[in-house]
């Protein structure tokens, strides 16, 4: 890796054109829509996620970034504690599997751009902590953040922005409408994003990982996993 990639890396990680499979996900908007969510409520759905599941992911990415950076030279990096903490805060199996699927695409990218980086090589420690579950998206994002030289704030904001944009991009397919309106939803959520950036970067350790719950998101994800006609994976 070259130096001075932090600012560019933050843009890369937030770019939907990143070839890691994010386009196949709706952040459970498809399940929400099947349950009756209407287009005028999508902005509120974005905000609900930012205060709950997306905040957990952002803080987990910060912890993974720290785990990658805090290990002294030569000492092993261990993503196990943060991976296990995310898993314990994600009661829905379809949502854990969606996160692991996204993690897989990101891990492929990480292995291509920095195959020898200890932060990337250590990704196996995440899966070891949760048998049957590959490294989850926020853990791999934290590792990528470490490789690219992102700050904690950049890492957290990339996770939160990506969550919001995943919803809005899916909304354009599920609730066809004016794409400019979707930009408004994201901008309107700016205070929510920044609040969750603050909470995520203030996290002290895996035990302290935010665990904000959104019961209907879990329910919608469960129903979506059982649906026969689907546009999005999750």
């Amino acid at each position, binding site marked *: 890796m070259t130096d001075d990639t932090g600012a560019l890396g933050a843009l890369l990680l937030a770019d939907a054109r990143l070839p890691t499979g994010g386009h196949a996900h709706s952040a459970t908007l498809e399940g929400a829509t099947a349950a009756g969510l209407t287009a005028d409520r999508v902005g509120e759905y974005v905000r609900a996620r930012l205060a709950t599941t997306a905040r957990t992911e952002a803080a987990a990415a910060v912890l993974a970034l720290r785990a990658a950076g805090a290990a002294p030279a030569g000492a092993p990096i261990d993503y196990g504690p943060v991976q296990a903490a995310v898993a*314990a805060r994600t009661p829905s199996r379809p949502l854990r599997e969606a996160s692991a699927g996204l993690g897989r695409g990101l891990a492929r990218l990480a292995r291509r751009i920095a195959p020898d980086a200890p932060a990337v090589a250590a990704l196996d420690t995440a899966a070891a902590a*949760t048998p049957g579950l590959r490294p989850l998206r926020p853990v791999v994002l934290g590792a990528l953040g470490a490789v690219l030289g992102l700050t904690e704030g950049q890492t957290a904001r990339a996770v939160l922005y990506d969550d919001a944009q995943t919803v809005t991009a899916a909304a354009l397919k599920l609730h066809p409408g004016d794409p400019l309106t979707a930009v408004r939803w994201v901008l309107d959520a700016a205070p929510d994003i920044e609040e969750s950036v603050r909470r995520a970067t203030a996290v002290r350790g895996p035990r302290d990982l935010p*665990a904000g719950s959104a*019961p209907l998101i879990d329910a919608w994800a469960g129903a979506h996993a059982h649906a026969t006609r689907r546009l999005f994976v999750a």
Partner: protein
Amino acid sequence: MGDAGAALVAVRRAGGRTHPHRLETGRFLRPRVMHRPDGPLRVALASVRASLCAGDDLRLRVDVGPGAELDLVDPNGTVAYNARGGSAAWSAHVTLGAGARMTWREPSFVVGGGADVLRSVEVDLAAGAELLWREALVLGRSGERGGALRSLTRVELAGAELHVEDLDLRSAADRERPGVLGPARVLAQVALYGRVPPGPPDPARLDLAGPGALWRSVTDRSHRADAVLDPVWRAWGGR
């Protein structure tokens, strides 16, 4: 346990049976043994006084020794009243020794209009222990929108986190957002920790990453949740 004001239910296994070891009345709850011809030891929590009002701090400690079996029932449930600017706390700390089994049924935890409650449930399971738990959080008595509730759950199995949740329903606007509770007023669940329950996958069933599962009902009426959860409770070993 040296926890002044807390109600204590401690049971131990000896001579092939589970016996009450220490039952201590707290400021709010009085544990008493319910005699019945067979089945595991059953302890009911009777109310000492109407709870919860502003400034109240209800604490419950449950300690089930290795290999012991306990059915804990709370026949009355809990109602949090208008705190008129104050707040109340309700906490339970449950410890199960190796191979212990417990069922715990809370009929309802009602957060009335104007109430402001911090609810906390902490569970420590030793290896091989298993807890079947049923709770029903209800926002408002009938016709009310309900008060503020923050409900924390932390369940650890052999020292590792199994389920951690921070359900923040303090702001009516936030909790009514799509994805949280929407227009629902009742969040009820059956949770089994320490064992994977039988039965096929279902949209309402949440299989945890570790051994355990939740079955949830998010609805507008308690009886609708009961209709969903009664069969789950029985199928997962509830009595």
